């Protein structure tokens, strides 16, 4: 028996009272959030039971596991607990903060920035798929351009904690070597940056794995210039002049996805810059559900009424997550964008989240841009999609995360090769 002292108020009773207060504080917090819990359970149940058996035990099991997830998601003031965890990791000088899903384990670079990290990976399937796609596009006169977005881990000065091998860049190099052999055109922004920019880490958020909006905008101007010089693509030079764009920076307003996992007491917060054109634009923006058949919604109007989601600028005095969803409101499986001011040019962009800060600006220069995210799009294979919709250009914008186990087989499944 731990207790030897019989006095009523002692360290054990104080601990117990505090424990009870804490447990019931969160219990009541959960009751206050009960509507959110109920809604999370209902949504999860709808998703899961669509395809599952009707065995009552299976239904109950699904219900319990949905409840588990809902309780965990709706803990009162959850982010403070994540902050506490981050502070603990920081005090213990941990550079690797594990996650229940190892893909989301967060690594702190020696320069203090946070990143994800991916192990070594073979890239044969990616080569096979892109070769087949390129052969078809060549046969119909469509130009394919692969755009390699950079990871925070600098190929030339990786800043990884001692002992970690720079597999993400090695995987990427192996893939690009294959593109050389296949004579597929590509832009490797890791090399472009190395040649033009001295402050690599300034191009990225500290608390998020993505490049900054400003970097995405710069990459857009580079790509337009590249297309002009290599494919003879013509466009209005005013569309790439930064003077024609409004740039609004909100200090300490952004909690990146990495900080979302490890807390701001570990990661800090970032400034966030919103960029949008200050000239007249006219777009029609159609967003589809993952099967690409049913339209989710349509937005018609200027850039800031369609491709740009102004609500992400609100509450500027608060540090918030997902401000980077100001473009496309996330990572839609399929969107069709029509620029009503441009008469021609049809581009398909196959992208991951690094494309979010490029593609909206590309849309200023083409009559139609379709954007596919193969991680979520379920309609058909990419090859079938380009066969059904003829394009002048197909651009694939991927970061090195595409060479990770969880994403590779989705992002490089261009045709039904199985």
């Amino acid at each position, binding site marked *: 028996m731990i207790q030897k002292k019989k006095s009523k108020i002692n360290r054990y009773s104080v601990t*117990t009272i505090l424990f*009870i207060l804490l447990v019931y504080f969160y219990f009541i917090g959960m009751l206050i959030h009960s509507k959110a819990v109920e809604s999370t359970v209902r949504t999860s149940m709808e998703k899961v039971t669509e395809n599952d058996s009707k065995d009552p*035990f299976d239904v109950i099991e699904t219900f319990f596991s949905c409840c588990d997830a809902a309780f965990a998601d709706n803990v009162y003031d959850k982010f403070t607990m994540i902050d*506490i965890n981050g502070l603990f990791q920081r005090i213990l000088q941990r550079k690797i903060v594990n996650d229940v899903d190892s893909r989301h384990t967060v690594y702190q670079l020696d320069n203090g920035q946070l990143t994800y990290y991916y192990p070594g990976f073979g890239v044969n399937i990616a080569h096979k798929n892109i070769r087949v796609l390129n052969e078809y596009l060549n046969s119909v006169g469509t130009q394919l351009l692969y755009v390699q977005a950079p990871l925070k881990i600098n190929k030339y000065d990786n800043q990884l904690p*001692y002992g970690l091998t720079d597999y993400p860049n090695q995987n990427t190099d192996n893939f690009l070597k294959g593109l050389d052999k296949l004579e597929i055109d590509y832009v490797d922004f890791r090399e472009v940056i190395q040649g033009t920019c001295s402050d690599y880490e300034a191009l990225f958020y500290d608390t998020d794995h993505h490049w900054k909006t400003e970097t995405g905008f710069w990459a857009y101007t580079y790509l337009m210039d590249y297309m002009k010089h290599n494919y003879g693509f013509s466009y209005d030079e005013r569309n790439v002049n930064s003077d024609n764009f409004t740039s609004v920076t909100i200090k300490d307003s952004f909690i990146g996805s990495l900080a979302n996992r490890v807390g701001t007491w570990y990661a800090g917060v970032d400034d966030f810059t919103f960029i949008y054109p200050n000239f007249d634009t006219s777009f029609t923006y159609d967003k589809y559900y993952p099967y690409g058949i049913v339209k989710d919604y349509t937005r018609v109007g200027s850039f800031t009424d369609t491709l740009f989601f102004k609500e992400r600028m609100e509450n500027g005095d608060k540090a918030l997550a997902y401000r980077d969803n100001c473009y496309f409101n996330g990572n839609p499986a399929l969107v069709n964008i029509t620029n009503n001011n441009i008469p021609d040019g049809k581009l398909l962009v196959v992208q991951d989240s690094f494309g979010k800060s490029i593609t909206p600006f590309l849309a200023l220069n083409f009559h139609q841009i379709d954007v596919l995210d193969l991680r979520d799009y379920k309609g058909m294979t990419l090859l079938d999609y380009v066969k059904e919709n003829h394009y002048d250009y197909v651009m694939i914008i991927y970061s090195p995360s595409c060479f990770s186990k969880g994403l590779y087989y989705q992002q490089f499944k261009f045709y039904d090769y199985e």
Partner: protein
Amino acid sequence: MLFTSVSFVYMFLPLVLLFYYFPFRKFRKVQHFFLFIVSLLFYAWEVPSYVLILLFSILMNYLFGILVDKFRSNELKSRMILSVSIILNLGIIFYFKYLAFAVSNINAVFHKNIPVPEIMLPIGISFFTFQAISYVIDVYRNNGKVQKNPLNVGLYIAFFPQLVAGPIVRYESFSSQLENRKESFATFSDGVIRFIRGLAKKILLANTLAAVADKAFSASKDELSVSFAWLGILAYSFQILFDFSGYSEMAIGLGKMFGFEFHENFNYPYISKSISEFFRRWHISLGSWFRDYVYFPLGGSRVKTKSRLILNLFVVWILTGLWHGANWTFIIWGILYFLLISFEKLTGFNKSRRFKLLHHIYTILFVMIGWVFFRSADISQALYYLKIMFFQSGNEIFDQNTYIYFMENKFFFIAAFLCSTPIFLTLSSKWNLNEKRWNGVLYPILYILLFLVSMSYVIKGSYNPFIYFNF
């Protein structure tokens, strides 16, 4: 349901405590009924259909208890009933846990092609079945009175704190508490302290070091360096201790919150100076179960011949190995301990008081070798892992993994080492910390911080394996 989940700590536990202590406070039977129902819910949370197995086990053993009691005067009949009950209980475990293993071995040995059944193992089946067996045997031995009320048998077998990972509570100790326990704030406080301590051990130490062990045991033969193999097994040794002892502490703590006292399950096993001592300190409830229900009935160590003693030890250790899982690795683990304990008993090594340090090194070394078998997926993995550990593979001595995983977890290794010894108890008593005024302030702060940090891991969603759930 996991103790280390938001659902348990912030929903299940406060609700159960609330109902137990308020509307049902003065109604013992209602409290028992309530605890039984919520225990079923607790068990059903993971795989609801397995509640039927649990209910079947409860009903079956309730009836056997009645029958054993009814025919108590007829030795032959009551023995037969007892035997049938044990066979049926073991039959349930055999079907769920060992049938697939047995069939695959028959196929391998006799070159047959019998389809291997795919049977999911119900969580904690070995724990609750052993408790069920304990009930019938204790009734037979008159070590506890037979329960006329099936609900009490149900509560004994299914009581949620110890249901899925022990400690294996003996019926004789539980039956008296069913009616005669007295809840108090002091016992409740003890329970809270034990629960927080167990939670912290499990989440902060076991789960963190599990990542190191998993990395080492998932490395291929060529990737694994000697140093990382040692670091991996060291991490696993701490993981399994704090995983299981953490869970046991949480169970003991929860029991106390409802006024129940469970026996201790761990007593600093890594300070042992012999393997025999190690198993008096490790998973005490399982060791004493086998001692009282298998070893002693076979004659124990008070037998006429050494060969009979060896046979008794062999039976107990093969069963102990098998209890942990249907895999040859567990059988080899059991045989290893059979050999070591036989050696100690025959030579009197375990009673020797000389060369304490060497005894300690010997014990830890063989315990770690045992854990290699315990953790490996199969014998071949265990053998190559041991070869690497003992420089027989030609693999490199030191690699980057050792550096990264040690540096990342250095504080956890230090904490695990300290917590695996009674150093805090010793220092506390030496410096008379319990009497210090500042300790009265620091202690609650420390425990609440431990609780909050542990829960921050749970809420964040971190790696959370439970080794003993598989047994």
